[in-house]
């Protein structure tokens, strides 16, 4: 094995480790961001920015060493150690920021933390890449190897790492990374051993041992870290158990007789052997909404006693669907005996799959579909409140079937809360003929195609309870008078109807408008009540204005240059930078659009992140190779840009063509192409830069522009543009912008 091969092997391992570490840290951040996809956009932006900074710093370091070979083993140690510290930082963030129990991190922390957590690793990876190029003397192979390592990391994480304890995974891979360092010439025996050789090798062996010990103790360390985290978040509650799954992080805590369940750091339900009051009221209010239901589909919420109450009714089938099997497995040991018995009943069928896919793909028909799902603050949950979903539910209901779900509300909804609820009401009204809402701090939305099917008065409910022979000592029919306040129902429905007419906004899969509204009424604490949706709306107005003005300016400059028939080198470099920044932006945006599309189809994304990123990177490598082949031709650079414009224009249609069962593969395939185009553009622009002899340092600027574009793409598209503008507008705005840049580029070429 030659030194060069050893070096490449080390870099492959380093890329693999970095990919896995990035994914682990993204999951930790998603817990901090209580499961919202904001963390994804901000963390990817932080990653791109810090890799760029690391590369810049790496160049300076290499130059300062005046051509001496840097120490890759030291860098590998750094790469291996940094994610462990970042992981601890993410877990202890609440302690560091002194967060009040029950609330979330302050806004400053939410904006800073992604940079603190993924930044150091990205910075180190950036430096390592520059050192690698310097040591190897060329970048092309290193790109290929890095992409292969990233791909392997993504696959490894997808199939093995996703359910492993993060600390164990990182310690084990860190250990392997350091072992890979022993392949290097530095670690091997020299002809004349020196002190630095000795110290270096002893240090390396020491580091390997430290990581091995850490791996050995990782389970205990993992538990300690988790306990510390929960001690800050819920100091009075006792940490009982937790579990990692491909859908996120689940934890159970105990408070007196209650077991409280948290998903991705957010409290979502309690189970108690003695608390019958809330569940009795809920069950007997909802289960009488169909006069003679025989089949019930329950999406979520089957572990808190609802199934037990449903068994009191003459239902022949109760289908309980839970996306994450880990939730049921984890909860089972902490459920009261009576709940376990209810779930074992022969009428109860548990489905471990995405509820939406069950409804869309199953041929079963139901009388009642009741969903207990979180608020639509994420794309994963929003897909249960869209027109497409409601239409699918309608198809799965028998004649006179009823759909019921709840949303955060207030006795008197106002502002963004009213706007959001009216949006859902309006969307529901688009599909069902009869829609009602029962107000409260949690409003229930009821829909059926058969008018008069739902019982909206206390008397009717009480009559149905008797008719259905549902006897429950824990429930008094007189409670219906409290639960169904006629005056409140009438005024609330009028309010929703009027607001729905005023706004006339529909929540759809490709335009998930409810997400931003929901974040400002029920999202992360700093956003709640902050008119967050108004601010993002304002921001989007400014952004649209800036983009439009920028495009007009670009066209004006191009026309001016054509008229003058001259083009200065500075302007030519600026053109290259603009094109590369745009391609970086559009590439990242396309990847995020595809991630969201996957999320909308399958209801989860975290486990797939590795594959998406790895395929994109593979595309970048392949594109780089292609780019080198065609570099130097006059119209080579406009080619990837033109293809990207066409791709973006067609992307929404392509997503719309998702094949049912193999939709995921289709999206993964679609993800490869922007990678290829982004990868091809770089060597082409780089070649053009070298032609412009009067400007030095062009490649560095190009790399910075690429990373900056990608960073902005992740931040803008991932954080707010997609829910605010929708997939169609995002893709088409980018396609139009790309077309304008193409015209600009064409005019620039004419003047050269």
């Amino acid at each position: 094995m030659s030194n060069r091969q050893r070096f490449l092997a080390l870099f492959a391992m380093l890329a693999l480790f970095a990919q896995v570490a990035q994914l682990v840290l993204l999951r930790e951040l998603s817990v901090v961001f209580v499961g919202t996809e904001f963390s994804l956009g901000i963390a990817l932006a932080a990653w791109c920015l810090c890799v760029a900074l690391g590369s810049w710093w790496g160049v300076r370091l290499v130059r300062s060493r005046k051509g001496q070979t840097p120490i890759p083993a030291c860098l590998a140690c750094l790469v291996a150690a940094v994610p462990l510290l970042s992981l601890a930082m993410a877990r202890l963030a609440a302690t560091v920021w002194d967060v009040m129990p029950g609330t979330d991190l302050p806004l400053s922390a939410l904006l800073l933390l992604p940079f603190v957590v993924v930044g150091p690793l990205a910075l180190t990876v950036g430096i390592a890449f520059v050192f690698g190029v310097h040591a190897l003397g060329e970048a092309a192979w290193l790109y290929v190897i890095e992409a292969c390592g990233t791909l392997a990391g993504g696959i490894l994480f997808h199939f093995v790492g996703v359910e492993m304890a993060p600390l164990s995974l990182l310690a084990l891979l860190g250990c392997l990374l350091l072992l890979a360092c022993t392949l290097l010439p530095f670690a091997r025996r020299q002809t004349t051993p020196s002190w630095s050789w000795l110290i270096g090798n002893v240090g390396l062996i020491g580091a390997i041992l430290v990581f091995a010990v850490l791996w050995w103790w990782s389970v205990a360390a993992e538990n300690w870290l988790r306990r510390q985290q929960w001690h800050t978040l819920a100091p009075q509650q006792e940490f009982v158990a937790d579990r990692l799954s491909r859908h996120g992080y689940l934890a159970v805590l105990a408070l007196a007789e209650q077991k409280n369940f948290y998903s991705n750091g957010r409290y979502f339900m309690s189970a108690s052997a003695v608390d019958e009051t809330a569940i009795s009221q809920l069950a007997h209010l909802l289960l009488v909404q169909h006069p003679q239901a025989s089949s019930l589909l329950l999406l979520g919420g089957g572990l808190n006693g609802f199934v037990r109450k449903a068994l009191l009714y003459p239902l022949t089938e109760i289908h309980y669907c839970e996306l994450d099997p880990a939730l049921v497995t984890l909860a089972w040991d902490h459920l009261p005996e009576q709940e376990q018995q209810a779930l074992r009943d022969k009428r109860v069928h548990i489905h471990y799959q995405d509820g939406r896919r069950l409804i869309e793909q199953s041929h079963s028909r139901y009388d009642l579909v009741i969903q207990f799902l979180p608020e639509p603050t994420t794309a994963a949950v929003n897909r249960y409140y869209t027109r497409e979903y409601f239409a699918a539910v309608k198809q799965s209901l028998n004649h006179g079937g009823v759909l019921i779900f709840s949303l955060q509300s207030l006795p008197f909804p106002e502002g963004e809360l009213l706007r959001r609820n009216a949006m859902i009401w309006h969307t529901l009204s688009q599909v069902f003929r009869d829609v009602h809402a029962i107000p409260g701090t949690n409003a229930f939305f009821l829909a059926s195609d058969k008018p008069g099917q739902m019982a909206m008065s206390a008397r009717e409910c009480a009559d149905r309870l008797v008719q259905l022979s549902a006897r429950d000592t824990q429930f008094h029919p007189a409670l219906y008078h409290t639960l169904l306040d006629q005056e409140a129902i009438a005024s609330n429905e009028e309010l929703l109807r009027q607001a729905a007419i005023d706004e006339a906004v529909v929540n759809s899969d490709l335009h998930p408008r409810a997400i931003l509204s929901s974040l400002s009424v029920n999202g992360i604490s700093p956003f709640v009540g902050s008119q967050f949706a108004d601010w993002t709306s304002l921001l989007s107005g400014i952004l649209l204005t800036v983009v439009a003005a920028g495009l007009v300016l670009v066209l004006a400059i191009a026309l001016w240059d054509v008229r003058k028939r001259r083009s200065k080198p500075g302007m030519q470099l600026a053109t290259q930078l603009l094109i590369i920044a745009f391609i970086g932006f559009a590439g990242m945006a396309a990847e995020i659009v595809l991630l969201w599309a996957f999320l909308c189809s399958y209801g989860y994304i975290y486990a797939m992140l590795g594959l998406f990123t790895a395929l994109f990177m593979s595309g970048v490598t392949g594109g780089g190779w292609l780019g080198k082949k065609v570099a130097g031709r006059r119209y080579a650079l406009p080619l990837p840009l033109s293809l990207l414009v066409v791709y973006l224009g067609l992307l929404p249609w392509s997503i719309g063509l998702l094949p049912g069962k193999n939709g995921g593969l289709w999206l993964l395939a679609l993800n490869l192409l922007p990678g290829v185009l982004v990868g091809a553009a770089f060597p082409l622009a780089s070649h053009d830069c070298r032609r412009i002899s009067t400007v030095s340092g062009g490649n560095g600027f190009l790399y910075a522009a690429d990373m900056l574009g990608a960073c902005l793409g992740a931040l803008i598209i991932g954080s707010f543009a997609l829910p605010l503008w929708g997939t169609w507008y995002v893709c088409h705005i980018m396609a139009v912008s790309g077309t304008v840049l193409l015209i600009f580029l064409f005019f620039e070429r004419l003047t050269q």
Partner: protein
Amino acid sequence: MAADTNHDCHDCTAQGGLSRRDFLACLARYGTAMATMPAALCALGMISQEACAAMGKPKEVEFYEKMPDRKTKCLVCPLECEREPGKAGECRTRNNKKGVLYNHAFNNPCILKTDAIEKLPMYHFLPGTNTLSVATGGCNLRCLYCQNWEQSQSPPEKLRTFAFDGEQAKQMTLTKKIPTMAYTYTEPVVFSEYIGELAKHTRPAGIRHVAASAAFMNAKPMEQLCKQLDAITVTLKGFREEFYRKMCDRPLKPVLDSLQLIKKSGIWLEIVNLVVPTYNDNGKDIKEMCKWVRQNLGDEVPLHFARFAPEYKLKNLPSTPISTLEKAQETALAAGLKFVYLSNVAPHTGNNTYCPSCKTLLIERLAFQVLQNRLTQGRCPRCGGKIPGIWDGAKK
């Protein structure tokens, strides 16, 4: 109907695109960020027309000081906000307009609704009767678990409001035969001028007035408010200074002073304590609170322990375990308080009223409903013991 009216928009949104309407709305919001004129806000639909109209007719605040440079110092609550012209106080309802302090929460409630009086909660005042609940926007506290935060944390001009004056209140209560008006949902302290106006018109017609308040108010305005009320439920949110500071961003002492003042005023007083897990659910604090209530307000003041539910900015805390509430009830009874209730839990025996002497069930409740009331002229039918409260006119 809505579907037909908005057909064009749906075609567009069916493809997931941004509609023309959205785009215009976006531009409008951008424009309104710079708009300062209430008229412009009204024209753009940011505030209701009624609110616009009411904004032109605010009521001058009774308790304030005029200061140099047309500044004002509000004396209604312990915050005593000093404001320059054009600025509103912490409560968001009292604004300095050219050196005169006005209350903008006047004749423009955002909530107007008939409720059971038990909902306040108020169990010893005309049980089983209805009340006309009135609330305006604004609050002088910043509770992290507020249940009506959309109203309480917004100024009146940003809410949908109704034009509703004293005469209309009189007409409505008499027509609907509602014996009381309740100032609840948001903080009555921030619209005390409006309460005065409503009381002035409806008291002569025999309508009684009750309030649910945090009682974060200065002494003189509180005395004035007590004159307009017949009963009040005060939310004593906790019994530690640190808790009040953290949870409500306000001090505790003024609330305790107000409670003593209310007791002296002679109006009917009940206390509610929301038991928030982690924050105010430890036995020691509850014991101290009960001891203070007994010593300073008497053992006949009803105390309600209410169950917390995750709301507003405290989404990550679970609901209070029932056993915690039951322990709190035991502690309060052991401290010598005679009437201790549990709220937001039903069915539960903690909802009922029992005779403190012979333990006979006097009023059976289910959530906010009175299932049966066995009191005879305010006395226990078994031992004849007098039960404190206002019972005349109550439903049997």
